[in-house]
């Protein structure tokens, strides 16, 4: 709607957006250095900024509504799920008649109906189904997810756009910021990830402890809780009765079977509490969701996205946790980056001649003052170029040693490879995994000093 010259024109609908305009038209001590207050910023934000919301569940519904009401007008939402009747208590954009339809599509339409001027493009598919290029069109990615796996995937895609200059400083135009929200019952977090500046998801993945798992023998021998009975049916009984048939948690018949088996087992051991919804919860590892926690976390995320894009105030630095379990606690922790992070770190730049062989490259890694990796194994985008061990892989990859790296890397001017080996760390040789930016001399010269990373 706004033309590229919007800053010349008077802002549209000033009455409707009075509060946003106040934030955008006043100077302050906490604004970004480049912030130039003006009410026309709001039209720029609406017309220029493309936002991707990942997930259209409990958090996603809130995020779409909050972002649309914060002046963002070009939104996309991606979610592979369809609406289940159990979602309706908190995923407030959905109605009974929507059950079975795509969450992304219904959520997009409902917000567009209610907030005039906003355009939301739904994507009813898995995040992995999209080409990597799809993600490059967005200025910011907001995550409303409940799985580590999906977060890790989006994080590596967003960090994959990041490029560094020859001094290992991130190139601003390649930075794809993310705002990540998450809730579990009464607890939640909102974090700002600016790849190359703040820690990425992988830098502090230890913040997410591995999911609690029951010992198999307890399930088989001494079940004590309803959850034990459900996991027994899910992990042991299913394979026993359906050999070779994979269990599908999204198949209602499969779930019903697990439920009835769990019920039988619970009766056998005199255990109460097995219900269909508990069965779903245990098998899919669903933590009870609370609408208000989602609302609080989403509000924090939408505000961070708004500040990040407009520069009208400082962002949280960099991880906000909310705990509503005992009273209300909100705390912000500044986590630090892992300088050797394989996903967001710069890696080490290595320049090669197009004639350098893999064997010569491995020797360079050993002699490189910053690396000193001995006995390196080398991999490139899932292609194992050389493996020192085990023997069977060494034999399969040995023929590559005499080939030029340029040929092995499919003649691209620059590439990211990873090397594993023993490297020196504080005087001790320890096993290390390193990211390397390989650039070929005399190829794609314009980008020589800014070889693409990851």
């Amino acid at each position, binding site marked *: 709607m706004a033309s590229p010259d919007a800053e010349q024109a008077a802002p549209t609908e000033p009455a409707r957006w009075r509060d946003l305009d106040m934030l955008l038209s006043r100077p302050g001590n906490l604004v970004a250095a480049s912030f130039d207050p003006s009410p026309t910023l709001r039209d720029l934000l609406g017309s220029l900024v493309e936002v991707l919301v990942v997930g259209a569940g409990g958090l996603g519904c809130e995020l779409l509504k909050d972002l649309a009401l914060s002046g963002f007008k070009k939104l996309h939402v991606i979610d592979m799920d369809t609406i289940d009747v159990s979602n309706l208590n908190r995923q407030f954009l959905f109605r009974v008649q929507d059950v079975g339809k795509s969450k992304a599509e219904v959520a997009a339409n409902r917000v567009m109906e209610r907030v005039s001027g906003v355009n939301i493009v739904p994507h009813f598919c898995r995040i992995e189904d999209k080409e990597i290029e799809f993600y490059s069109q967005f200025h910011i990615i907001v995550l409303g997810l409940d799985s580590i796996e999906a977060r890790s995937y989006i994080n590596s895609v967003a960090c994959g756009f990041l490029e560094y200059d020859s001094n290992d400083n991130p190139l601003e*135009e390649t930075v794809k910021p993310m705002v990540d929200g998450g809730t579990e019952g009464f607890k939640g977090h909102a974090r700002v990830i600016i790849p190359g500046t703040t820690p990425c998801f992988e830098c502090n*993945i230890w913040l997410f402890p591995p999911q609690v798992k029951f010992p*198999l023998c307890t399930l088989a021998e001494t079940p004590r809780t309803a959850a034990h009975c459900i996991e027994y049916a899910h992990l042991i009984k299913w394979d*026993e009765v359906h*050999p070779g048939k994979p269990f599908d948690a999204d198949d209602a018949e499969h779930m019903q079977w697990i439920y009835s088996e769990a019920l039988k087992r619970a009766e056998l051991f005199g255990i109460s509490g097995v219900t269909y919804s508990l069965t779903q919860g245990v098998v899919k590892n669903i933590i009870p969701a609370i609408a208000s926690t989602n609302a609080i976390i989403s509000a924090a995320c939408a505000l961070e996205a708004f500040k990040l894009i*407009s520069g009208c105030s400082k962002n949280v630095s960099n991880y906000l946790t909310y705990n509503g379990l005992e009273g209300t606690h909100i705390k912000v922790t500044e986590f630090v980056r892992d300088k050797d992070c394989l996903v967001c770190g710069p890696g080490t730049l290595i320049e090669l001649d197009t004639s350098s062989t893999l064997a010569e490259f491995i020797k360079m890694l050993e002699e490189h003052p910053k690396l000193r990796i001995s006995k390196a194994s080398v*991999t490139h985008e899932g292609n194992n170029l050389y493996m020192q*061990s*085990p023997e069977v892989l060494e034999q*399969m990859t040995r023929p590559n040693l005499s080939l030029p790296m340029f040929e092995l890397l499919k003649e691209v001017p620059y590439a990211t490879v990873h090397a594993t080996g023993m490297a020196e760390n504080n005087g001790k040789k320890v096993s290390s995994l390193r990211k390397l930016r390989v650039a070929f001399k005399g190829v794609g010269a314009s980008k020589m000093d800014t070889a693409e990373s990851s």
Partner: protein
Amino acid sequence: MINLFKIKGQKKDDAATANGKPAAKKQSPGELRLHKDIAELNLPKTTKISFPNGKDDLMNFETTIKPDEGYYVGGKFVFTFQVPPVYPHEPPKVKCKTKVYHPNIDLEGNVCLNILREDWKPVLNINTIVYGLNLLFSQPNDEDPLNHEAAAVLRDDPKKFEKNVQRAMAGGYVGETHFPRCV
């Protein structure tokens, strides 16, 4: 930091930044960590590893254990490993492909080994699991049974347990259950 005027300027040279190579499928952090685990494997003499899908699929592999001590000497046991994309946050799924008479492995190949489930930690690695599996053969444990009958025999009558193991590995019946030969 990001701001609107920069985004505005950026619009124009979007085409310029796209002149690199097409974005490639990324290797997940889990795949990279596994690459390290595999390149550094230090397998005991009893254990061999193979990659049925070739050198570029490390996420699915098999280990073959030929125990050199204990009840199972002479046997040959194949385990399949399925490594999840979020490895090492989550442990690999390990199953015993060889039908075995063992207190801690059931007839479907489920393995009761603490580090595969409740005691898994991201600092552990494939080597740790391989050693754990070897330990199951040198020291089968009647306290964490998955095969209840085998555990009871091991506890109450180790001599009979030894005979049962021999019979199963040679390809025969223990009770109602038939075990294919695995020596």
